[in-house]
Structures are given as C-alpha cells and as structure tokens.
C-alpha cells in the first residue's frame, strides 16, 4: 500500500532492468507467530484494521469462531481456528493468524504484469502499490498461499503490508504491538529464526515431539514464520507442506515470455528474408489463354 522510499526496492513486478538497490546493509526482518502462545483473542485483527483504517463489511456467523471466515480485501489478517485430532482421540484446538507470508521469492510479484504494482523491499517485505494495480488477478494465481484478495469495489488487490509504513520508521507491525500474550514477535530474520527454534525446543520438552519452525524453503523462506506444535503436518492448520511457486506460473512468467516474443519477431524476420530471397509469387502470364 505505502510507498516508502526509505525502504529500498530490491524487486519490482514486470520490470526487466535492476531497481535502485545501492543500500545493501538493510537488515532482513521477520514476524514470528507462535501458535502455542495464541489465545485467539483477535486483538491483532483489530489492531490491523485500526492502523490501516480498514472496516470490513459486517458478515455472517458461519458457526465457528472464524470472523470473517476468510481473508478479504479489507481484512488482511484473520484468526483461523482448527479442531483437529493429531493423535486419535486427542482433540486439539489450534489457532493460526492467517495473512501474507512475505515470501523471499514472491509468486505474486513474479506473476504481476503491471510494472511496480508489487515490490519487495530490501528488508524482505512484499508490498502492493495498489495505485498501479490493474485488477487482473495474476497475483492470486502466483501466490502459493492463496493470500491476495481482489476488491469488488475498486478491482484492486490487497493483502497484509507487514506494516511497511511502521517498519520503515522503526516501529513494529500493529499486530505485534497489540498482541497481549507475546505470541507475535518481530525483529531481524536471524533473530526470529533463532527464537523460533528455541521456542520449538521448549515445546518438544513439553511433549510436542514434532514442534518446529515453519519457514518454507520452497519459496526461499518467508518473512512471516510460525512456531508450530505439529510442524510435520502444517496441513492441520491449512498451510501447504512444501509450498513453492506453481511450475505452471514459473513457465508462464519465465521461459515462455522471451521464447514467445522471440518466436513472433523471428516469424516476421523470417518472412522478410524469405520474400527477399525467393521473391513474390506472380500470376503466370502463359500463352494458352482461354483454357
């Protein structure tokens, strides 16, 4: 959403030349969400709508705590509640704060056809510059986590900005600031990975043998990570086990682009030289007229 010159742009959608990126010492940031500490109070949802001045439409109760039931163009983070039995007869209530994962290799940015509508800053935040958004929905196809939502009102894509405007001036994201149990932390990526691993070890001591950090390498790691009690089964909380940009999207927005353009130009050039080589086909001016 915001356009912060202070946050250097290291990647820009639909741009074939390098972006200004002279300042290389910007620390990588990350948000760490510890599912084991989350009590599902939704203060983060409130803080998000407060800071970003978002007011979603009043929806309908779908019979569970999820409210709204999914991410929307004006609900950039949503608490999702899962009643699962990781072990037979052992009911667990898992809560996950859903939202943009801020991939190191963002599929939305790869797919976006509009120059500068999606950027990645040097600190790792992936941001939508909605005034450049053309509403094509390609980011939706590029995202491995089903995060971007297109507004029916203005046909622009929206998602969590990781409060890039706050981070740019040295503040933590609004959801982090408000979390009453300390389930959400924010810092450098290295610190958050170290802290996440420490938390996972503590959970292991408490009997959660498969506890771990969700920082999927298929997308180069993420700048939003989870501490999970069942890191071996992220699908329990509706997360892909080994996410990556779909090979279809990689083909479409990768090798197909230059090949197709070269093919089109090549066909025209080939036609030009063919004509110059063999010349035109002209009517036979044969003598046996009147056949």
């Amino acid at each position, binding site marked *: 959403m915001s356009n912060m010159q202070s946050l250097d742009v290291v990647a820009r959608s639909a741009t074939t030349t390098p972006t200004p990126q002279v300042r290389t010492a910007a620390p990588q940031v990350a948000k760490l969400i510890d599912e084991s500490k989350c009590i599902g109070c939704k203060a983060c949802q409130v803080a998000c709508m407060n800071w970003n001045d978002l007011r979603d439409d009043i929806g309908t109760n779908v019979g569970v705590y999820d409210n709204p039931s999914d991410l929307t163009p004006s609900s950039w983070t949503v608490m999702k509640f899962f009643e699962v039995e990781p072990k037979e007869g052992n009911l667990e209530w898992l809560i996950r704060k859903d939202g943009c994962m801020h991939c190191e290799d963002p599929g939305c940015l790869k797919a976006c056809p509009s120059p500068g509508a999606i950027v990645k800053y040097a600190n790792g935040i992936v941001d939508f510059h909605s005034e450049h958004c053309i509403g094509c929905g390609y980011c939706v196809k590029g995202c491995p986590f089903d995060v971007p939502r297109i507004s029916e009102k203005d046909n622009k894509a929206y998602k969590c900005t990781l409060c890039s405007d706050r981070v740019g001036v040295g503040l933590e994201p609004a959801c982090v600031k408000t979390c009453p149990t300390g389930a959400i932390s924010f810092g450098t990526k290295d610190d958050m990975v170290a802290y996440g691993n420490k938390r996972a070890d503590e959970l292991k001591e408490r009997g959660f043998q498969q506890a771990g950090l969700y920082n999927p390498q298929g997308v180069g790691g993420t700048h939003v990570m989870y501490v999970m009690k069942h890191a071996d089964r992220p699908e329990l909380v509706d997360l892909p086990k080994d996410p990556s940009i779909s090979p279809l999207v990689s083909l479409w927005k990768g090798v197909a682009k230059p090949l*197709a353009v070269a093919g089109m130009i090549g066909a025209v050039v080939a036609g030009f030289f063919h004509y110059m080589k063999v010349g035109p086909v002209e009517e036979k001016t044969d003598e046996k007229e009147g056949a």
Partner: protein
Amino acid sequence: MARLLQRYKDGDRMNHWFIALMFVLAGLSGLAFFHPGLFFLSHLFGGGSWARILHPFMGLLMVLGFAGMFVRLWRDNVVNDADRAWKQHMGDMLRGNKAGMPPVGKYNYGQKMVFWAMVVSLLLLLVTGVMFWQPWFTPYVSIPVQRIAVLVHAAAAMLLVAATIMHVYAAIWVKGTVRAMTRGTVTEGWARTNHALWHQEMTKGR
C-alpha cells in the same frame, strides 16, 4: 484487361476485416500483460486497468466474428486429396519454385492449416479466457485450474499470432491476393496460377 472472378462477397470481406481489427486490438492489449517489455501497449487503451477491462470484450468480439467466418468457410477448408498432393510439393513452393505445384481448389493446404489453427486457437482462447475473466468468472474457477488456463491462453495466443503472421505474409507474398479482400475479386490469371481447380469450377460452362 484481365477478366475478374468474384472470390468474396461484401459480407465475407466485412466479416474478415472486423475479425482483423479485433485481432489487432485484443492482440496488442493481451501482449501488454504477457511481457513487461510490451506493457507500454496498454497505454493505447487508456492504461493498464482499461486494457484489462477491454481485452476480454475485444477477444469475445473476435471469436464471435470468427464464428461467422467459420460458418461461411469451413466446408471449403476440409482437407482433400488435391491438398495432400500439394502438400508433397510445399517445400518447392517455399523455395520459390512454384511452377510444378499440383492444382488445388479454393484454398491450398497451407491456407487450410491456417484456418484450422485459427479455429483451434480461438476456441482455446475463448474457453480459457473466460476462466480467468476478472472479475466476472474468476470466483467460479479454482486457482489451480486458473493457472492452467493462463498458460494455455498464452500458448493459444502464440499459435494464433503465428498463424496470422503466415496468413498476412502469404497475402503479401502471392501477388494479386490482397484485392480479394479489398475488392472481392481476383484476376483469372491469379486464379489459374494459384487455385487452378477453383478456376475451372468458376469458369465452367463459359
């Protein structure tokens, strides 16, 4: 003064040029989304959002226009034995040795292949395009299916562009062809040279 043969009626020609216009408009706006180096083309349509809004409608009009052409021409484009004989000598033709080409009817094998390539690519473009037509139809199509659709849409568009480049080139290459679409008539000499069987048919009983 060479005698002229009627090759297309006015309705055929207007139908053809309507498709051609829509092809240019849908093609330029589509290319804007395909390669960042071609995004500037979106400015011809009033910017990215307008190109995104207009592209599907122009594409749909092209398909509807082609449906009219299909009804008019599909029978003439069924491949027959004369085409198979002509196909054997296609290499000679391309090398500039057009003397020994077997006689063909209203369309030769190359023209028929262009026709069917356009039929197939437009069908694919229509079906896949609707699947990710923002915002109307995307809510009804799953994201994995949309990913297949965008890839097939791009591939079909390339097939259509390739077929059209051949189509336009052949019209420029074979002299006396363009007037068939600008005036509706061709010279008898042209017909005898390029479509001998059609010429026979047209001049039967003279």
